[in-house]
């Protein structure tokens, strides 16, 4: 076992494995999450993010390896650990027959809070996620973004030590995402430990101090967003988009434009430390792309480098 950087990580996983029958959904992953940190799992569909989160959430038994949460073993102390977690699952689990407020009140009761405490807390949280005026409405007609906000409010009802968020903003419009990010950012500033999964590199860059990239049940890289970009990509990227059919005829003409070339079906990415210079070099070679875009490297590029595939298809 490797020595821990921090005295007691809130989450400690070594060789953590999940199998469904013969199929391995999570294959011997190692990670630690320290108190107050916000930690992300970035990866494409089927990478094993949810399977990992469910084990950490103590609702899915560990097949092999070590997992300690708040220093306890989920197989032994699942209910006790769950008492200190807040969970935003990938698929909503709200009670659609109850009102918005009653969803929070009954959830508080699950954590052993008194009725009075439950009601006070529910009202404060509805304010926090800007749903106070919908308190008496049923859950059914709420928009996707509102349901997500309600689920986050519900996850905070017990003042959790760790907040687990499985794709908190997937399927939401940009405005709803930004509102959620703002709320999560505030929680982070209050010292809540966040663990989240996402397909979105902007989300990971915004919210995560540190993240792991998962692909095909394994962790393929780990670090802060900046570290990962420095390690696996260049400072800048030049995106060249050619007319239909032209890209296939460019064999041999692209090499050497930058440190690395990545051909996607619809465009060519040139990785270098000076994107403008790369664009100029392409021009000198007589290449005539329809559009040229110079941008900073992102986690998307890291992912492409690590897995040979793009993150969001």
């Amino acid at each position, binding site marked *: 076992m490797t020595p821990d950087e921090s005295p007691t990580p809130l989450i400690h996983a070594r060789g953590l494995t999940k199998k469904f029958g013969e199929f391995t959904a999570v294959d011997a992953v190692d990670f630690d999450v320290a108190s107050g940190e916000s930690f992300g799992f970035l990866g494409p569909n089927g990478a094993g993010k949810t399977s990992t989160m469910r084990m950490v959430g103590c*609702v899915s038994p560990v097949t092999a390896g070590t997992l300690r949460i*708040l220093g306890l073993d989920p197989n032994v102390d699942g209910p006790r650990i769950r008492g*200190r977690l807040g969970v935003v699952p990938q698929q909503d689990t709200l*009670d659609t027959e109850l009102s918005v407020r009653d969803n929070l009140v*009954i959830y508080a009761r*699950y954590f052993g809070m008194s009725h009075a405490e439950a009601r006070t807390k529910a009202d404060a949280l509805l304010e926090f996620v800007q749903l106070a005026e919908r308190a008496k409405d049923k859950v059914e007609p709420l928009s996707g973004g509102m349901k997500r906000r309600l689920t986050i409010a519900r996850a905070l009802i017990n*003042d959790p*030590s760790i907040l687990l968020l499985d794709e908190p903003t997937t399927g939401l419009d940009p405005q709803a995402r930004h509102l959620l990010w703002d709320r999560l950012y505030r929680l982070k500033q209050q010292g809540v430990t966040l663990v989240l999964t996402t397909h979105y590199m902007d989300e990971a860059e915004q919210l995560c101090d540190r993240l792991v990239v998962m692909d095909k049940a394994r962790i393929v890289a780990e670090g802060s967003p900046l570290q990962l970009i420095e390690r696996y990509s260049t400072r800048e990227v030049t995106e060249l988009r050619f007319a239909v059919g032209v890209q296939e005829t460019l064999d041999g003409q692209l090499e050497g434009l930058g440190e690395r070339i990545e051909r996607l079906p619809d465009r060519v990415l040139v990785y270098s430390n000076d994107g403008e210079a790369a664009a100029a070099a392409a021009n000198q070679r007589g290449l005539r792309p329809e559009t040229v875009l110079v941008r900073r490297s992102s986690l998307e590029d890291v992912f492409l480098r690590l897995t040979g595939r793009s993150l969001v298809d």
Partner: protein
Amino acid sequence: MAVSGAPYRLRSAGDLPRRSPLAGLGAAYEHMWLIYRRTWRGSIFGSFVQPVLFLLAMGVGLGTYVDTASPDALGGVPYIQWLAPALLVSTVMQGSVFEATFPVLGGFNWDRRYHGMYATPLTPFAIAFGQLGWVVTRALMVASIFAFVILLFGAAATPGIVLAIPVAMLTALAFAGPVAAFMSTQRDTAAFNSIWRFGVTPLFLFSGTFFPIDRLPDFLQPIAWVLPLWHGVDLARALALGTVGQQPLLHLAHLVILLAGAIVGLVATYVMFKRKLER
């Protein structure tokens, strides 16, 4: 340390209370009450209408005919008095199958409420038994209203009709347990429709509620013995008519079989819920 103005209060990670599984069970049960609060008016009304209609049609209508045609067929007891406690148990049984089907399908597949509950300190024990506890509570409500209607109709032979209520609750559990366990494996109502058509409805008609099971063809009589409805029906009837003493062993057997069915149902529901939640 409280953050002023924030809805969130940071808690120390070392603060890990143990809670008794019974506390969780109470909260899961409370959840069902909360849902019921929104729908109770309609359901109470239905609970009155059904016994009134059945007692009018079968008890008064058919009963007048039976009593005139063969006054001694049922040991001299008026048909409506003979029918009423049995109808109470059969009606409660039907309700319990409903209550063990839709909340369970919804809890696992539709709004996935059970998965939300399981993300808290609640255990599969609390979730499974909270649901079955609620089925028994509903049985108590429906049976009590039914007994009240029977009294209004003057269809009670003795005060023993009150004892049909606990018998109905036990019968409800003996049905709801296995049904809930099975429904945890289903994704939609397809199987429920078959169970209702080919299981519940024939049972309702042929388990000695409307006529004695010795009127059934010989090959069907063992089926009445195996499935718990006839045991509940016959026991409730004997208690209501005050005839338990005539065949004490048979009625003891009824009680034992109902208890066994209830226990099997409880265990099966617990095992299946646990398997389904822990993936």
